[in-house]
């Protein structure tokens, strides 16, 4: 606040912009399209596909042009120090909301493990629920569901000490390499910035490769699927949304890498870099939670 008392650089309020409305139309197409494809009543499926596709195109277009514009505005020196703080707060609170999104799924996992499965198995306060499926035994991982005719439990679960451990090492080292890259950028050492950044991208991509491999094994060999009872449900929703975030993060890192190679950012001014780095560290932390609570325990 105090910095303003001296000379005040006007806060940049962009003039009219078509990005928001196009982005809204694209969300509409995505939502309506996805719902139509999923429900597929009366051949709305085809129309749904078209809308979904349109939505993606529009979204892609908006994201590219919006970020290009922001980068250009930043280069033109339109952004004051105060504006920079706005971006920082904005990104920070966006990540907080993402944390809460994962919190919903972690909460579901804990509730199921601590309450609902034991109750169904006749343990604890509401153990009377055992009368629903007498003989059901509470266990975790839940290999036999209360009603195996509806939900056939998994034959096996993923061994945490193979792919998941490897993935943990990959992600944690990617956080380190990203920090090294950031350090290098602060020192204006662009070669090492790019090298470490590229290494980070590769680590992210390798992580994703192993994640796909793991899913493939889960489906083909372990019988661990989305419909394998609540173990499969929680396993896939948590790892799936995490994987999605890693994918997005990797793409963003790649964009940043391109921008670094094009000579953008200075040792002092590189908020886009930092924002993506925050995001990446956040994704990393979520993974540690997953590794502990989904895979090991």
């Amino acid at each position, binding site marked *: *606040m105090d910095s*303003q*008392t001296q000379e005040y650089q*006007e*806060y940049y*309020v*962009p003039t*009219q*912009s*078509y*990005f*928001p*409305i196009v982005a*809204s139309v694209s*969300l*509409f197409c995505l*939502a*309506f399209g*996805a*719902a139509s494809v*999923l*429900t597929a*009543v009366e051949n709305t499926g085809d129309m749904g596909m078209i809308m979904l596709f349109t939505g993606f195109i529009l979204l892609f277009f908006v994201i590219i042009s*919006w970020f290009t514009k922001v980068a250009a505005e930043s280069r033109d020196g339109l952004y004051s120090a105060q504006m920079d*703080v*706005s971006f920082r*707060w*904005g990104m920070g*609170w*966006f990540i*907080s*909301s*993402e*944390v*809460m*999104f994962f*919190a*919903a*799924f972690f*909460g*579901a996992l804990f*509730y*199921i493990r601590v*309450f*609902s499965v034991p*109750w*169904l198995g006749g343990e604890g*306060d509401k153990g009377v*629920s055992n009368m629903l499926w007498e003989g059901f035994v509470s266990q975790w991982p839940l290999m036999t*569901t209360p009603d195996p005719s*509806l*939900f056939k439990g998994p034959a096996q679960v993923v061994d945490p000490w193979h792919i998941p451990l490897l993935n943990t090492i990959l992600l944690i080292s990617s956080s380190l390499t990203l920090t090294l890259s950031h350090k290098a950028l602060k020192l204006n050492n662009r070669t090492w910035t790019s090298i470490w950044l590229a290494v980070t991208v590769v680590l992210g991509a390798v992580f994703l490769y192993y994640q796909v491999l793991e899913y493939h094994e889960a489906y083909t060999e372990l019988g661990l699927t*989305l*419909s394998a*009872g*609540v*173990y499969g*449900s929680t396993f*896939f*929703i948590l790892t799936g949304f995490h994987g999605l975030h890693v994918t997005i993060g990797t793409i963003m890192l790649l964009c940043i890498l391109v921008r670094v190679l094009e000579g953008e950012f200075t040792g002092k001014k590189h908020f886009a870099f930092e924002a993506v780095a925050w995001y990446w560290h956040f994704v990393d932390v979520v993974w540690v939670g997953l590794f502990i609570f989904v895979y090991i325990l």
Partner: protein
Amino acid sequence: MTTGTEQITAAEIETAEAGQNESFEGVQADTDKHTDATEHHHGPAKGISRWFFTTNHKDIGSMYLWFSLVMFMVGGCMALMVRTELFQPGLQFIQPDFFNQMTTMHGLIMVFGAVMPAFVGLANWMIPMMVGAPDMALPRLNNWSFWILPFAFSIMLMTLFMEGGGPNFGWTFYAPLSTTFAPPSVTYFIFAVHMMGISSIMGAINVIVTILNMRAPGMDMMKLPLFVWTWLITAFLLILVMPILAGVVTMMLMDIHFGTSFFNAAGGGDPVLFQHIFWFFGHPEVYIMILPAFGIVSEIIPTFARKKLFGYSSMVYATSSIAFLSFIVWAHHMFTVGMPLAGELFFMFATMLIAVPTGVKVFNWVATMFRGSMTFETPMLFALAFVVLFSIGGFSGLMLAIAPADFQYHDTYFVVAHFHYVLVPGSIFSIMAAAYYWLPKWTGNYYDEKMGKIHFWLSFIGINITFFPMHFVGLAGMPRRVPDYALQFADFNAVSTVGAFLFGFSQLLFIYNVVCCIRKKNQASKQVWEGAYGLEWTLPSPAPYHSFTKPPKVD
């Protein structure tokens, strides 16, 4: 000064102006200069594209407010259909399934389409002016937050015309009603909710960033107007709970289409889990709908009592504690669902605790008025009704919070009476009050005071006729969400329906008044209200397109 029943004229105001807003040093001169400058360079764009492409907080605020008014009318029509069916026992007007769709859509539209956007609209209009900022912190994002809403609600409304009808599972969409037994359109509903969530989260980020980063020099946190404070806390709540809502509808989507069993006990899940997650979002959500209202009332009462707000800092702390407590009381909606005894006790006592900070607030409002020189213009009338009627809703909430008693009250019309007392004369009245209070600042013209008063009294009477009898039928055991009911409830229900129509149609007066106020010239002064205090009153009426291009100094 005048007794208040008459219109306060511009001339009278000008004489009073010398007083309280002087502390904002050099503001007048500065802003006048700026209006000149900005009018030439970037006033509003011409034509319809102004609204699609705008980045201006006032334009966006207006769009939010109009959108919310439209939704209020749509949701209101649905409510009137419900009330018409309930006028008499038996089925005469609509079929049960359509009745369920109407109650569901009414709830969803009022919560997400009317109340929340109205508050966001007010935030957009007022927060930059109140903290001395040029605009919201992230203007393009701001416009995106708005434009998502019309699209989300068109999807929502379209479901009514789809095969199997629209959502019919209540605004709380409990699984398995909303999963296993839902109409196919539930998928559209899920994606519409996702869109609203995105909109709310971005809106909340914008509010937080604006408040934390855009305050004029000297505008310390503990000098912020209470409307700004309550919105800051509301925005935190939004950021923390909207993602939870997104999470829970995602799990529904997975259960419906991808074979998971989160809410299906056959696979080891639990339908009660749905309720826990929903209410972890839902209870903070009800505070999202009331905290900004607290802020508005805390602005209006001091103005018309011509006294400073009593206990400013205690208001701030009370609001924060309410926000904190709202995260640990959610299961008071689930007393009858089968929780361990320890849970029942914990949630009962935690809920009752909320009455303490709420009581602090009511006490402060009353103390502000104590020995003030009060006048009763329309905004003040609404604010006063708010204090009284919201307290009634708070007290019935306390009754519901008593777990053993709630076994009797739960899912009866008593609950309906409770939340309508907090939502209609609470949230809606505060929005009305805010509209009347700031209309002269927005449009530059005074509204018709007499018509405003008539609108108030009709609404006040209508609301009480509608909702008070619901306490009685509820205590006597009439269940909620039913199209038909036992004969002994007939009289009170007929009364309720009459009240509902009275309330509904009186709102037309409001619309008429607003439109006239925009059109007719009845020039308002800068100060507008004699006792008004704050940066927004240092700007001309109507407020210039860009408020404070250069931050004013606040002492």
